[in-house]
């Protein structure tokens, strides 16, 4: 239980403090009514309710503790609201015009139903997988949980990213960005970060599985907290990879459907690169080496889930993320010349 307390308490405490500071700054700047009704709060309750219900629901379901439901609800909702407010106020001060872009992404894009649908699906699917395996085998490893989370991500991410540029083009709102004094690169990075914020909010509740494992593990041996930290890092990295890839897919077309399909095709090709190498019998040639190296989940995420943080894997994800962001910027710029 001590690990559980430290694991939840330290980040939780930091979040709450940052949130209170942010709330304070925002209220001082805007006045009470404006501050509380700021657009940042539009996103916060949505996230808070979903997270709260999820955290609380899982508590009720697995541990059969009605009290945990209430605690979970509050424990999920309060930090989420505070995170939203805190980040909002802090970034606002540090980096106003770039942050305006990020904010626009987070709030306009996520005021649409699709991301909430994705969040809902994500929580349901991961929860179900976790529950089913726990039921089936009585034992679930951290590794298994995150592997299933990662495969669900691959499936859901194109839905999150398809609209980033394509929808704005189709609806003409891209002109808002075109006439604002921000560069294409800033817009692209802002769209990336806006989606990452949402992804992190989506990912955070899956930490809960760990605490459940700790609870369950009292009978069958405790899970090690090390892999959880490395797995979380791996999930963030592969998330960045998927988001930047989806962003690129969205930057080359005006159709959301096309953007989603292109993203899926790219990801599937990358994921299948290892089997492709085997099918073509090039496994131990240099072509095969490259193909195997390109496989994001098998080759580069797997070590994180085992608790191994290899700098080469970190470099793989970061360099691909930067590469796709670069491609997106180029694709937006080149469109203007045609």
């Amino acid at each position, binding site marked *: 239980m001590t690990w559980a307390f430290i694991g939840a308490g330290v980040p939780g405490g930091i979040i709450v403090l940052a949130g209170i500071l942010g709330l304070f700054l925002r209220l001082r*700047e*805007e006045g009470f009514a*404006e501050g509380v009704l700021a*657009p940042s709060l539009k996103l916060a309750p949505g996230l808070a309710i979903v997270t709260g219900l999820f955290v609380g629901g899982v508590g009720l379901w697995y541990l059969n503790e009605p009290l945990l439901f209430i605690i979970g609800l509050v424990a999920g909702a309060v930090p989420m609201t505070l995170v939203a407010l805190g980040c909002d106020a802090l970034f*606002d001060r540090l980096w*106003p*015009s770039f*942050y*305006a*872009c990020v*904010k*626009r992404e987070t*709030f*306009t894009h996520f*005021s*649409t139903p699709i991301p909430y649908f994705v969040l809902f699906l994500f929580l349901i699917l991961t929860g179900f997988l976790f529950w089913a395996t726990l039921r089936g085998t009585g034992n679930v490893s951290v590794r298994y949980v995150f592997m299933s989370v990662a495969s669900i991500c691959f499936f859901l991410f194109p839905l999150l990213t398809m609209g980033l540029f394509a929808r704005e083009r189709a*609806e*003409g*709102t*891209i*002109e*808002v960005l*075109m*006439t*604002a*004094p*921000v*560069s294409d690169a800033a817009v692209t990075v802002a769209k990336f970060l806006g989606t990452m914020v949402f992804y992190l909010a989506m990912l955070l509740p899956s930490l809960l599985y760990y605490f459940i494992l700790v609870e369950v593990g009292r009978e069958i041996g405790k899970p090690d907290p090390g892999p959880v930290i490395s797995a979380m890092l791996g999930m963030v990295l592969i998330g960045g990879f998927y988001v930047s890839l989806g962003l690129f897919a969205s930057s080359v077309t005006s159709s959301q459907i096309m953007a989603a399909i292109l993203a899926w095709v790219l990801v599937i090709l990358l994921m299948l690169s290892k089997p492709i190498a085997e099918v073509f019998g090039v496994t131990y040639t240099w072509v095969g080496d490259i193909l195997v190296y390109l496989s994001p989940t098998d080759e580069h995420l797997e070590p994180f889930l085992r608790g191994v943080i290899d700098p080469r894997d970190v470099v793989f994800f970061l360099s691909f993320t930067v590469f796709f962001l670069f491609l997106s910027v180029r694709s937006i710029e080149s469109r*203007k*010349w*045609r």
Partner: protein
Amino acid sequence: MTVIDLKNVTRKFGDLTAVRSVSLSMEKGICYALLGPNGAGKTTLSKMIGGVLPRHEGEMRVLGMDPWKMQSEVKAHLGVVMQSDALDDELNVLENLRIYGLFFWLKGRAFRERVAELLEFVSLTGREKMPTQALSGGMKRRLLIARALLSDPEILLLDEPTTGLDPQVRQVIWTTLRKLMEKGMTILLTTHYMEEASQLADRVGILDQGQLITEGSPTELIHRTLPSCVLEFDERESPGDAAVPDGSLVEHHGDRVYVFDDDETALRNWLGEHGISAPHLRQTSLEDVFLKLTGRGLHE
């Protein structure tokens, strides 16, 4: 002071040359109207001035800067209203302004004061909480103008600010623009409406198939192109082009005949001789100039 200066600017889309070697310059504090039929290249030209699109050839200076190479700097001094109503539909009026204001570091009390002032200016006070989806076309356009003014720009670019709006709203927008001109704002607007150009503009440029075919003040353009009076009547009543008074100019647009002459009495006398019913005798307008110069057929 010259604030916008273009020399031989050309822009292509594939094989199509949308803007062909356009040169024009604009002084500070004037209102310049770019007239042109659909597809003439008005939007393309104003996007290039706004740093939104690059050009393929030519030189361009906006406030002394190259609008493509120094995009952010130029955009920071421009207020732009694009042809499409580019508003974030999920957000309400105030939030749309708030997000855009952030691009210019405008927030807190400064933002609130500026917004109150601007909404009043475009007669949208009290609509702060309305979702932009619920706004009428005229309100949207006024909101866009307010948003373009948020940063207190030096130049306002308006791409067809009154197309598709009813006459009352059009008047409201014209009044708004006139007030801005009194305060010394430099305005570049594109339009299909001759009336808009003659009501607002100090200078007019006519763009046709990507080329700037003429330029000058509205009266100058009229005097340069056509005689000062025109007699307009139905083609079916025409006694034939050969029958018009000496020195008059005849034009046919659709099923109307236009006879231009500087001598109004001569036209009146001629009218009496030929017994044409329902004639229309009036001063030559910018519209006549436009039709004469861009031809009457469709270019598409």
